[in-house]
């Protein structure tokens, strides 16, 4: 527990040091939003869609669909969204193995840097 606390304190310290450096380099309009770059914020981003999803699932009971598709059931759109997105992401690795070649495969160089 103490180890974890010291690890978190270290991470916080490094975040603060990084942000202090970034404050000098960043665009003035971006300074109030530098916290978006913190690791803790990026790690905890998951709670934003999770809360949004729970609220909309509950609201789905209040506003049932006017036109139902055969696959409509409780929270069906959430299931479709999650599964479809996951399917696309999980297809990436096998597709990359199958279709990826060296950047200069066609002998025309790589575009866009």
């Amino acid at each position: 527990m103490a180890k974890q606390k010291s690890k978190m304190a270290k991470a916080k310290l490094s975040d603060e040091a990084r942000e202090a450096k970034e404050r000098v380099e960043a665009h003035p309009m971006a300074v109030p939003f530098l916290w978006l770059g913190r690791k803790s914020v990026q790690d905890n981003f998951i709670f934003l869609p999770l809360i949004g999803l729970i609220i909309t699932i509950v609201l789905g009971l209040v506003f049932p669909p006017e036109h139902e598709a055969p696959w409509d059931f409780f929270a069906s759109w959430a299931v479709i969204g999650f599964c479809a997105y996951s399917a696309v992401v999980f297809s990436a690795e096998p597709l990359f193995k199958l279709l990826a070649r060296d950047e200069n495969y066609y002998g025309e160089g790589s575009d866009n840097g």
Partner: protein
Amino acid sequence: MADLLLHLNPGFYFIFAGILCALLPVNIVRKSLLVLTPVFAAFMIFQIYGAQEVISGVISVGPQELITLRIDRLSMVWGYIFCLAGVLNGIYGFHERCRITDSSALIYMGAAVCGVFVGDLLSLFIFWELAAISSVMLVWMGGEGAYKAGIRYLAIHVLSGVLLLAGAVIYGQSNGGDYTFGNIGIDAPGGKLMLIAMGIKCGFPLLHNWIQDAYPKASITGTVILSAFTTKLALYALARGYAGTDILIYIGALMTVFPVFFAVIENDLRRVLSYSLNNQLGFMVCGIGIGTPLAMNGVAGHVVADVVFKGLLFMSMGAVMLRTGTAKASELGGLFRSMPYTTVFCLIGAGSIAAFPLLSAFVTKSMIISAALYSAENSHAIKDWIVLAMLLFASAGVMEHSGIKVPYFTFFAHDSGRRVEEAPWNMLVAMGLASLLCIFFAFPWGGYQFLYSLLPYDVKYHPYTGDHVVFQLQLLFAAMLAFAFLKRIGAYPHERRAEILDFDWTYRKLGLGIVHWMSEMWTRLSVNISRVSMRLIKGTGQKFYHIFSPAGTMSQSTPSGFAAVLTAGMLVVTLIFIYIGAS
């Protein structure tokens, strides 16, 4: 004079301005023309079109009558959005000093505007080809690496034009010389040829590769301009000629799905957006196939929304490329620190394409999906439900490539350490205006109602019903949750530099390989043929020499009986040949 202007296709103003730009050395005058010409053209459309269809500018070329101006509710939508895109593109490219880009951009826009406002197929063909020829300059302005892509782009578009002309001639001849561009249908003579021609320009599956090949290689401004016109002109042609053609429903559904799988593994973010463009075109092609008034309104509305939000996304990637020199996801990240305005504009574009409530596609794409749902409800056919399921799957897929991938890997993700300047003021103004339009077209109090007033049919669709908002958010939040979850467990793939093979491999590698092989084989064959024929000629000559030369067999003393038999034999053979020849 004023009366004459009312009979002139507004696209001609762009073409005149484009020719003028080619001659003008003063940059500021050219830039002013780029912004003011679309404003003037839009004003003229407003002046010409009342409530009724306008047909004018009829020119006789030999026995043929060309209708150079036809404005009705369908073409008017495309005309206005092309002018709007022209203004945004003009502002976006204000910093660039390139006479070729300015001139070809205006001629290209003019060809597209002329294309939607002509009333016959032959005139359409002329502007179809002019759009191809003028736009290839924008590809070539992308630099040395764009040359070959430009050649391929030109070849494919010229082929599309040739098919259109062939189909139009067959269609016109079967109609007694009437080339009027109205509803054609796939079963009409020449109908299939014209559908393929439009399909090439529209990015049908397997005919789509020119988009991902040429657009990412064009210049920064060029890509933004290209994204607005060519494919939308083809969509107009499809909407005019093939509304309600069943096969388009399935082609469109396929178009929405397959680009999602390529976009997820692509590292070049401008190519990701090109796949995304293909995906959005799929929704519109599907809507044209359904062909009901709601679907057609959805198509026209989504064309307006797509030109703006897709332009906005390409603009933001262009701004990033201008400042960092790259659009590779693997090289970017953390740019929100340096380019905060561009980040916000990109997020608005991403939210719009993903169809978040209060952003444009929430209204327009939903009309197409609702039309697909009503169509499936009425028909109870499994194939229609499958189409609907494909559209829903693609909606979640859009969230992956354009909603999350593009903004996340550019502006957030890991910090690439790049500290660059914010985009130039003109780019920010263009992106700001596009962002405002993305919000305006979905604004519940007067915004989407204004968009509805432009659509070809009267609209009774209400986008902000409780169930629509809730279920759309459910889909999008679930997709975002999946992203965050997969990222957290390390299952989300890292961005890697690579060339991703697509169907263009068949002509860029396989086809080219076959041509090289055939050329090599032909060279070898011709060498061997000449060697064999030389040997044959030489051998025959030697044989004759041995027989007939002064030292040959015939000159040697032989028994007179044998010589007589030989001569008689030769005489018989000669007589047989003469006999056969004479008969």
